[in-house]
């Protein structure tokens, strides 16, 4: 029953109960104002469907969760109303065996097709059916005068395994689909039964390139579930780590962009900046990729403020020089401009986050949610063109803002320290703005303080769904690596 109209309260997570008959209407209503940030199911007495909605408006940012018990085991086809729900519908089917009521075909997200269906002994979160009905999957057939260019899963050197089914007529991109199940590790299943502190170990390794953001999101979720207050100095330490993570990721994205456009000199310049930033991370926090910084209830290590103050200007100077030189290289910019265009409408419909969404003109940033260490004046860069160049310039602006923020946080003081998490049951939502965009985590703790259901939603899990659209906007498939570099996603984050 919707006694109250679900509304987002700034800086807070508001939870509403929505009975399944009303779900469709509520989603229709909320989808006009809020962004569908996540959708997942959890098992209890009955399976409960939870939808996480985000209000992105500056100053009023907050989250709404709607909870719907699915007594009948079905739910309406929400992706018809909010297309952003589609990948999650597929995930819920593969985890719980629940399909939307219309019975439309679903994509394969986690389960491999060739290990037998279902793979023998593959653990699930709910009650997945023993056999899949044939109509549950859409056939990949290519008809007419096009063919599927098989690319992967073993691709170039030093990139993650991913299969592209690139349907092409010889030159143009007709269609594109991705298989990520090669890397599915069942992390949400693994997190069951762990303490929040143990969970952080795997959460960081879900998507190592946003270890801080995911760790923060999981820790914050557990903190919210237990009502723990994290010392402000520790929060600022987390924020320093998060901004350092953003800096090195954007440097790495810049290197990847140069590599994809064949600009080796630019790639080298970006990699010099990247390596200096990684060394700075190691000096400041003891780990090049900032693993182990976030702890449940605080941070395990305080940043070495002197090291950061001494090294950051040089490392960022390297970044800035490379970026400036790139912005003066026309052969490079020509490849970026009008490549991989995503309109604001597409980004909104698919619920994209991070630089990808911001480059299309959607100002959404989890740092804006009040209550964290970030103030209201955090600048969030946006673009309008929605092409690779816009994403690149958004990243450059974000890097500059990160440097400013780091200085601010260091001046305000940071310290190691953790608050103890009480062993109580509860649920909580946590978020952090990873370099790729908003990372979300939701945990449900049992009475012993251990996790009974954890939901991880890295930004990669969101943004890959915009990748197909960006590629389809293209006439030539040689631009796909450029688009992939500009999204700067990980397969690990999708196939978690």
């Amino acid at each position, binding site marked *: 029953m919707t006694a109250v109209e679900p509304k987002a309260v700034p800086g807070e997570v508001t939870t509403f109960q929505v009975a399944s008959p009303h779900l469709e209407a509520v989603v229709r209503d909320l989808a006009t104002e809020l962004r569908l940030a996540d959708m997942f199911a959890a098992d209890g007495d009955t399976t409960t469907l939870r939808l996480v909605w985000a209000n992105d408006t500056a100053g009023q940012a907050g989250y709404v969760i709607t909870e719907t018990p699915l007594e009948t085991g079905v739910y309406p086809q929400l992706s018809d109303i909010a297309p952003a729900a589609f990948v999650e519908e597929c995930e819920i089917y593969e985890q719980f065996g629940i399909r939307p009521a219309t019975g439309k075909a679903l994509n394969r997200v986690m389960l491999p097709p060739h290990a037998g269906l279902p793979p023998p002994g593959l653990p699930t979160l709910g009650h997945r059916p023993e056999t899949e009905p044939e109509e549950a999957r859409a056939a990949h057939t290519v008809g007419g005068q096009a063919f599927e260019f098989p690319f992967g899963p073993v691709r170039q050197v030093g990139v993650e395994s991913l299969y592209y089914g690139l349907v092409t007529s010889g030159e143009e991109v007709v269609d594109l689909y991705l298989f990520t199940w090669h890397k599915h590790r069942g992390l949400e299943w693994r997190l069951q039964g762990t303490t929040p502190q*143990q969970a952080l*170990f*795997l959460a960081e390794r879900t998507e190592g390139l946003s270890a801080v953001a995911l760790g923060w999101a999981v820790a914050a979720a557990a903190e919210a579930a237990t009502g723990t207050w994290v010392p402000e100095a520790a929060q600022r330490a987390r924020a320093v780590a998060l901004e350092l993570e953003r800096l090195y990721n954007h440097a790495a994205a810049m290197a990847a962009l140069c590599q994809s456009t064949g600009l080796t*000199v*630019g790639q*080298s*310049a970006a990699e*010099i900046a990247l*390596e200096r930033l990684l*060394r700075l991370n*190691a*000096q400041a926090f*003891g*780990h*090049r990729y900032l*693993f*182990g910084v976030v702890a449940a209830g605080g941070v*395990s290590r305080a940043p070495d403020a002197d090291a950061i103050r001494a090294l950051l200007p040089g490392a960022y100077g390297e970044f800035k*020089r490379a970026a400036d*030189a790139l912005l*003066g*290289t026309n052969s490079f910019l020509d490849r970026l401009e009008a490549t991989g265009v995503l309109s604001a409408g597409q980004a909104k419909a698919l619920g994209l986050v991070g630089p990808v969404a911001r480059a299309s003109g959607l100002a959404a940033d989890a740092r804006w949610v009040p209550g964290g260490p970030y103030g209201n004046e955090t600048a969030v860069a946006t673009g309008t063109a929605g092409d690779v160049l816009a994403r690149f310039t958004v990243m450059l602006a974000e890097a500059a803002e990160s440097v400013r923020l780091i200085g601010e946080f260091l001046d305000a003081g940071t310290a190691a320290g953790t608050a103890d998490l009480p062993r109580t049951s509860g649920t909580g939502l946590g978020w952090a703005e990873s370099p790729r965009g908003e990372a979300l985590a939701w945990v449900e703790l049992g009475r012993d303080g251990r996790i009974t259901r954890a939901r991880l939603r890295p930004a990669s899990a969101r943004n890959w769904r915009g990748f197909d659209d960006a590629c389809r906007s293209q006439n030539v498939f040689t631009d796909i690596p450029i688009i992939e570099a500009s999204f700067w996603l990980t397969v690990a984050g999708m196939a978690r």
Partner: protein
Amino acid sequence: MTLWFIRGLRRGVVTTRYPARPDASAASLPTPPTFRLQALTSQTADRLAETCPSGALRRDGSVLVYDVGRCTACGRCAAAAPHAVIRSGEFELATTDRSTLIKEIPVRGEGR
């Protein structure tokens, strides 16, 4: 392109001399722990084995079986027992024999 060329010349060489010479940046890398035998009591060993998230530490009678290969150098053991665990500083851990990565650390107060 000329610009890039000049920039590159001005930037100079950054390449490490490793492995011919040691590299200074190795000092700040996370490295697997080293154990203080004096402080490694059986209780400590059990706590360490329980703390380790990657299963690198396992108590086997009088020894703490330490699999360096599984160790992620996460530092949780050092946080749990700072008196018994310190930083090793070893990062050149590659081996052609997996068994050389498995160390048996004697535990105090056991096997007497």
